[in-house]
């Protein structure tokens, strides 16, 4: 057996390796920092772009309902209101439906059906939003205008208090339609998050409950849901973040009307739709600046919502020991 000669430390080579190591570390760290910087830069650039509007209108920008390109008077109330209303409608529809879908896919459906349906839902979450918008405008709006909204107006329009929500001309375009389209878009998202977190529940927890004679519903409601509560809320907020910031699907069906109305049947506007519709037509600096200021407001709101979502989702991960 030949003894291997003791290797002389190759100083030059070691030093080169250490140098490259440091360079590489520096390179990947700066790429990581770039991610941080880009989010901060996005916020600052919009604050900068909207400075004229913020300077002129002050904090009142948030609750003025004026939007007049001729008089150069701009306020964000109507778009903010529209964004909140459409997102609320969307979540009211999407959350129970998504919960039902997740329940169906994790406990009820036969095994062979779970994977294809789950995969189909995830694929549909990737369909571009402009497709949802086009379908909404060309297919859903005429159907609602002819068959659904007249009936809603006739049956619910005269009710006390909530009647105002359901009365109005049956144009088909409007807050209700936008909320429905948003809900259809958000359902695949929320349901696939819920399904995923439901699958993280340890089998022995569920099996113990079944062994004690629990029904499927009791297992989901009293075992699965409490275990995954924070992540489920996180998933809902993720969907809310998407509903608040969604642009194309809403722009098509909202009607682009700058009026404050209680009725869900009447056209309205949302932050994203206002920007998408008017940005390329904005002919004055103040107009453009007001639109960017609107974008800044949207950014702040979605930032808060998404932060809550991520913190909630992270809690379940911690419990799993990741």
């Amino acid at each position, binding site marked *: 057996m030949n003894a291997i000669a003791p290797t002389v430390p190759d100083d030059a080579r070691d030093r080169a390796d250490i140098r490259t190591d440091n360079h590489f570390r520096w390179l990947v760290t700066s790429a*990581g920092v770039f991610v941080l910087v880009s989010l901060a830069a996005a916020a600052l650039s919009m604050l900068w772009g909207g400075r004229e509007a913020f300077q002129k209108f002050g904090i009142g920008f948030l609750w003025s309902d004026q939007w007049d390109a001729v008089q150069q008077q701009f306020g964000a109330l109507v778009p903010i209101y529209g964004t909140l209303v459409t997102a609320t409608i969307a979540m009211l529809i999407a959350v129970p439906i998504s919960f039902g879908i997740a329940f169906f896919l994790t406990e009820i459906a036969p095994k062979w059906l779970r994977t294809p*349906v789950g995969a189909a839902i995830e694929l549909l979450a990737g369909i571009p939003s402009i497709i949802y918008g086009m379908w909404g*405008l060309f297919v859903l709006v005429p159907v609602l205008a002819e068959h659904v909204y007249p009936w809603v107006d006739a049956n619910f329009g005269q009710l006390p208090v909530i009647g105002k929500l359901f009365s109005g001309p049956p144009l088909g375009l409007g807050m209700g339609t936008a909320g429905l389209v948003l809900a259809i878009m958000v359902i695949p998202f929320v349901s696939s998050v819920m399904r995923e977190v439901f699958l993280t529940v340890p089998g022995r927890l569920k099996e113990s409950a079944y062994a004690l004679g629990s029904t499927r519903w009791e297992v989901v409601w009293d075992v699965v849901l409490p275990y995954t509560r924070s992540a489920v809320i996180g998933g809902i907020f993720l969907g809310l973040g998407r509903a608040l910031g969604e642009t194309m699907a809403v722009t098509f069906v909202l009607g682009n009307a700058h009026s404050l109305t209680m009725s869900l049947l009447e056209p309205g506007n949302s932050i994203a739709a206002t920007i998408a519709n008017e940005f390329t037509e904005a002919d004055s600096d103040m107009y453009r600046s007001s639109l960017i200021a609107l974008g800044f407001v949207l950014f702040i709101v979605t930032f808060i919502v998404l932060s809550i979502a991520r913190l909630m989702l992270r809690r379940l991960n911690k419990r799993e020991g990741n």
Partner: protein
Amino acid sequence: MSTPLYRVRATKNLVAQVLAVLAALFGIFWLVWIMWTTLRMGVSSLNAALFTEMTPPPGAEGGGMLNAFFGSALMSMLGIVLGAPIGVLAGTYLAEYSSKSWLGETVRFVNDILLSAPSIVLGLFVYTLVVAQMGHFSALAGGIALAFIVLPVVVRTTDEMLRLVPSQMREAALSLGVPQWKVTLQVLYRSALPGIVTGILLALARISGETAPLLFSALNNQYWTTNVLSPMANVPVVIFQYAMSPFDNWHSLAWAGAFVLTLFVLVISLLARAIVLRNKMTHD
């Protein structure tokens, strides 16, 4: 056997299950309706001119979307070329170099937010950053806007895929005296490559349908151009403008474009899925 309590529980269970099945049917109903409409309208407006002719002027008959397809392909490539390398490096930082540091945790958190941030916000960001400085809309600005959407997707998947690589592989290589950068480049990247490619494909699927960021960066152009410093047509914005117009010919072009776009996105997503699946099988 059937005490009142038991009956109440059984009824509750039955009602809940029926509602869950109805919820699943409700969700699938809309999605099938949307897919069916896209397929029907898209196929009926599909013809060879779509891929060989330029976008027609208002009110004219015929025409295609050749310039828009070219613009979308070019800007998506730009977005990938600009966004993916930074994304892979940042993902490497998170998985290999940050190990529970506050900076790493912050980057991961911010990246998750960027991942689901409204794309219209990124469009406005690139408008103030690039378009306002250059003084005009351009395909380059469009590519940059798309790169900011590619970035978080690639960071996320690279991070996840590198963390799936068994730590024995790192330790084995390091114990042989291989420097860390070489371990990363030659051992970890090789092992995580299918996952990283999947991430890039998912990013491609996502940006090919993005409309809002391109409205404020690349805008649109009725004519053929290969100049990245000029406004350029692209499929989503053309679909948007044509669908909102009052012309029937434009509507049918918009449907054809929407159909091709949806098909492309679905094929890319399926491809990404297939890579993950095949990789899983060879590993198991």
